[in-house]
């Protein structure tokens, strides 16, 4: 690990200003992703700004009937929150399907959204990777691709976003509230938050340098039967091969978002019109334009079947 100075931020605005003042500065929240990558020297911050002291862990009702989730709310607390369990159960389910009890006790809402890919070549510092070293090349293309993306890929990168929680957030139309180094605040719709890799896979989100996430907001509950089906190599404590988050209403209409298939949670609103006609019709629209390899083409079948399983559950 490279050496770094350590400080505790006192206010969100101060943290953002401090982070922008130096290119090597980074926020640390739970640390469960950043420290993992720092040990491998994939991340090499020279200055760590600990957000732990900021009182950003509250989960509060909003005036329009939604929920405002503090950036530092722990994954365990968010999954266990009574309002989330009742009104946004797909979010509880997605969180509980991720990582382990120990990790969820540390992992935060913002850190979870910003966790980096699990592409094995990204983790292997002996292999070229455009995400780690822009322009170095992509070792996954032409390599082992079983876990890689099948949608929205580019010639530069075919990595997936590994978060389960982010898939539920996308399904629920969350907003990401931030403060920028100049003190300005904004809300980024979750649909625009994560980026596709295109030519610049090292730029993963819409955040500007130093921009701090303060909260994630949920609009008022939409009801329906909500579920998160995660398919993985082990029954627990493993990343998704494919995951399917669904909201299904009694008339068969609803929403669907996929995890494990792209560089961001995958949702195509127009494809949802096909939901009353079943899983095949829906996935045809949702997966159109997919580019697979012999090793990961199974993800398309898996997505259709996982959606079929969700649709077969009793509704209401």
């Amino acid at each position, binding site marked *: *690990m490279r*050496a770094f100075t350590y400080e505790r931020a006192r206010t969100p605005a101060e943290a953002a200003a401090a982070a922008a003042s130096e290119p090597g500065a980074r926020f*640390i929240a739970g640390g469960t992703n950043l420290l993992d990558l720092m040990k491998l020297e994939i991340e090499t911050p020279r200055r760590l700004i600990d957000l*732990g002291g900021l009182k950003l862990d509250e989960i509060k009702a909003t005036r329009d009937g939604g929920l405002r989730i503090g950036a530092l709310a722990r994954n365990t607390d968010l999954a266990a929150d009574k309002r989330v369990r009742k009104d946004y159960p797909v979010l509880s389910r997605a969180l*509980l*399907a991720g990582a382990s009890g*120990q990790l969820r006790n540390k992992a935060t809402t913002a850190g979870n959204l910003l966790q980096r890919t699990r592409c094995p070549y990204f983790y292997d510092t002996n292999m070229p990777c455009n995400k780690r070293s822009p322009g170095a090349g992509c070792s996954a293309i032409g390599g082992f691709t079983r876990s890689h993306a099948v949608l929205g890929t580019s010639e530069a990168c075919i990595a997936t976003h590994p978060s389960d929680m982010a898939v539920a957030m996308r399904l629920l139309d969350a907003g990401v509230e931030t403060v920028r180094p100049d003190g300005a605040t904004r809300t980024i719709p979750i649909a625009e938050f994560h980026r596709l890799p295109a030519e610049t896979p090292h730029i993963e989100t819409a955040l500007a340098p130093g921009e701090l996430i303060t909260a994630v907001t949920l609009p008022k509950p939409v009801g329906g039967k909500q579920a998160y089906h995660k398919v993985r190599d082990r029954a627990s404590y493993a990343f998704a091969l494919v995951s399917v988050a669904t909201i299904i209403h009694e008339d068969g209409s609803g929403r669907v978002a996929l995890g494990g298939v792209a560089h961001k949670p995958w949702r195509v609103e127009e494809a949802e019109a096909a939901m009353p006609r079943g899983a095949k019709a829906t996935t045809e629209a949702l997966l159109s334009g997919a580019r697979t390899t012999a090793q990961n083409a199974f993800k398309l079948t898996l997505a259709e079947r996982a959606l079929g399983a969700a649709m077969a559950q009793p509704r209401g």
Partner: protein
Amino acid sequence: MVEQSDAGLSRRGLMAVGVASAAVASAPSATAAPAQDAPILATVTLEVNDRKQTLHLDTRTTLLDALREHLKLTGTKKGCDHGQCGACTVIVEGRRINACLTLAVMHEGDTITTIEGLGTPERLHPLQAAFVRHDGYQCGYCTPGQICSAKAMLDEIKAGVPSHVTADLSDKPKLTEAELRERMSGNICRCGAYSNIVEAIAEVAGGLVKGEPA
């Protein structure tokens, strides 16, 4: 004591050299800076097993290394050092976490319980006694992590925290075998003592409810 910290330093030195030469071979831009950094020191006070401990540490020191290398509490084990095995599980402010994925300096003033604080050879914690009775281990390497994890996990069930296998999110979670297995999945046992571990935990928890299937 001196010997041990010397060993720690040279291990770190070796690792850094290894990374640098690998980078020269294939990814020149990955680590351009010198392989050795001068340590940056910080002071932190932890309350470990009811004792206040003030440490002067390299900011890079994980909570796990602070406990093992600096406080000589070697009951907590290092398995993977990457959050993947649970051998380093300790209880911080009442919650189980992986000590390998957090920095000591992030825990100023925190209350930390390690396996040494749960029980002693003379006065075993009920979970320790149950692991012995049920043969909840073979080599024992994962055991301190299993026991710290189990202690805090039972508190999570009591507090009503749901899990991946909880059938009804509006219900209090039940003490089923499926629940125990899912909730303990962050603790890997290479010896595969899982079924005896479940029995030991179940006994301390007061017995299992006959399960809904997972």
